């Protein structure tokens, strides 16, 4: 392919020949790569949860379903298993604030064990101790603090969509005692409250919890410990299923990931359509310039040179549209990150997707331009010059 810069004015001027057609073609490609960028951003956001999930952390939940509860008494029985370092119960609280649409992932847990299990959590020591000491205290992620403007010491009337208090109220008065961060900008949109406060206050399901998070002494012993936990509760009314947090996250992503697969299919279809649109544009463009191609060949442009020119023009169109599309996707990621953060933390175009997109742009241009370029290459000068 002719790639030297001296041909660029020739290529650019070719694009300006039918400006409207070029504009619509580039706009179509822009939309295709915008969709691609957004789909990859979503996939990245979903996958990032898996990447930060620990392989040395196990989740023990009811064998039947994630929504079935487990006895709180299991905690001590799990704790004594060889290889277990720490255990905390957790339950889906269904927390919200002001508007039920403002759902916040909220988990009652054992505060001391929680820090043993999640050592990556970054929180000032004084705040940490203050939270551990206050049964009605909550530790919130930086994302929640930013979202609602909460500060340490703020009293919060936290609502639950699931759990009512003994007096029938769905409001759980709590106080912000600590604000945590995660390394590498992980999702900090969560609230952690005391299990004791939750257990004592809830109206129903006393003595039951959602699931256990278990930290093991090494990744190597995770599988053995998981088997031992499940064996311990086999044939009981509440049998368990234990797997690593990472496997659980991957399983969750795989379910949600079907959306990603659907998006990929849509983007694939859009790309195919773009291939046809670009190929049609190039075919029309070459047909209209038959005489000019004859002139170029007369001046000494070789068949291979003409092939390269047409292919370069096609790649220029797809690259222009593609880069604009990817930049638009990146811009949307940056601008709407605070909105997406609530549902898709880490939503952004990953670097790998940008590289992939550039490869697709070039490939799309080459494939779309192949037939017109071949026709231009094969054009006989005398015949081409006869067409005015």
């Amino acid at each position: 392919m002719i790639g030297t810069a001296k041909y660029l004015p020739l290529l650019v001027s070719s694009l300006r020949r039918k400006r409207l057609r070029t504009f619509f073609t580039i706009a179509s490609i822009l939309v295709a790569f915008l969709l691609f960028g957004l789909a990859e951003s979503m996939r990245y956001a979903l996958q990032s949860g898996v990447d930060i999930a620990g392989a040395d952390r196990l989740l023990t939940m009811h064998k039947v379903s994630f929504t079935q509860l487990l006895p709180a008494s299991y905690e001590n029985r799990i704790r004594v298993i060889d290889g277990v370092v720490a255990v905390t119960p957790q339950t889906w609280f269904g927390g919200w604030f002001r508007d039920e649409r403002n759902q916040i992932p909220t988990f009652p847990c054992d505060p001391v064990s929680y820090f043993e299990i999640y050592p990556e959590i970054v929180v000032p020591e004084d705040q940490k101790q203050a939270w551990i000491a206050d049964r009605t205290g909550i530790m919130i992620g930086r994302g929640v603090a930013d979202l609602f403007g909460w500060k340490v010491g703020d009293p919060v009337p936290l609502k639950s969509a699931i759990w009512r208090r003994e007096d029938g109220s769905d409001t759980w008065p709590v106080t912000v005692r600590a604000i945590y961060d995660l390394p590498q900008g992980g999702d900090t949109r969560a609230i952690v409250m005391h299990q004791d406060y939750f257990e004592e206050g809830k109206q129903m399901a006393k003595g039951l919890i959602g699931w256990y998070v278990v930290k093991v002494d090494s990744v190597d012993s995770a599988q053995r410990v998981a088997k031992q936990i499940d064996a311990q509760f086999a044939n009981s009314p509440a049998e368990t299923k234990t797997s690593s947090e990472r496997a659980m996250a991957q399983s969750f992503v795989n379910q949600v990931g079907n959306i990603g697969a659907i998006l990929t299919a849509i983007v694939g279809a859009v790309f195919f359509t773009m291939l046809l649109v670009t190929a049609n544009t190039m075919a029309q463009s070459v047909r209209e310039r038959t005489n000019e191609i004859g002139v170029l060949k007369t001046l000494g442009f070789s068949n291979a040179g003409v092939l390269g020119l047409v292919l370069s023009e096609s790649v220029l169109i797809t690259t222009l549209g593609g880069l604009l599309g990817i930049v638009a996707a990146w811009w949307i990621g940056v601008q709407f990150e605070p909105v997406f953060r609530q549902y898709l933390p880490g939503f952004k175009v990953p670097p790998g997707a940008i590289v992939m997109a550039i490869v697709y742009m070039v490939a799309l241009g080459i494939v779309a331009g192949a037939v017109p370029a071949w026709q231009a290459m094969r054009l006989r000068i005398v015949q081409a010059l006869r067409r005015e």
Partner: protein
Amino acid sequence: MSVEPAVAAPPIVRIRDLVKEYRRGAEVVRVLDGLSLDIRQGDFVALMGPSGSGKSTLLNLIGGLDRPTSGSLEVEGLRVDQLTDASLAHWRADHVGFIFQMYNLLPVLTAERNVELPLLLKDLTRDQRARRVAAALQLVGLSNRAKHRPRELSGGQEQRVGIARAIVTDPTLLLCDEPTGDLDRKSGDEILTLLEALNDEYGKTIVMVTHDPHAAERAHRVIHLDKGMLSEGQG
């Protein structure tokens, strides 16, 4: 039939027994029928003849735009008819300048970009190309129209740009296909005067196809073609 130059001089173009046939369905049409011709260095030859006599075909063959069915065609001792497509393209870029009746400028490019086109194939820097383009445009008297696109120029000016494009690589041969055919008499005369100057002052060898006897008068030699055969008169 053969036509030899009146004055002995080394031929730059040497054509022997040239035959060109086209196929139209089942019919084979012989456009050039065993033609032999020598053109000397610095000659200015007018090719005349009725439509379909093979003038443009001969011009295309001399310029390496088409291939003969049989016979030989040498330019500066090189068997042009035996070159590969790629070699022929390189040879055209180095040795031939074409001037068309309809100018054939690229409408999206300015005059200077059009003139620069053949230089893109050369190993020249941007500055070198710019200097050559400026010199060619100056030679045809269009330095002040360098930034204009073809649609902003008159027919005569477009043809001057076409001539500048043809001479910018300093080719051995200038091949002109009806260069005044689309111009009024005044513009046509200016183009012919320019071609004469290129021939007289710069020693360019020119082969010009024309229907116009007035244009042919400017040439040193006038060669008539009829049914693929030659006859010669003095210009």
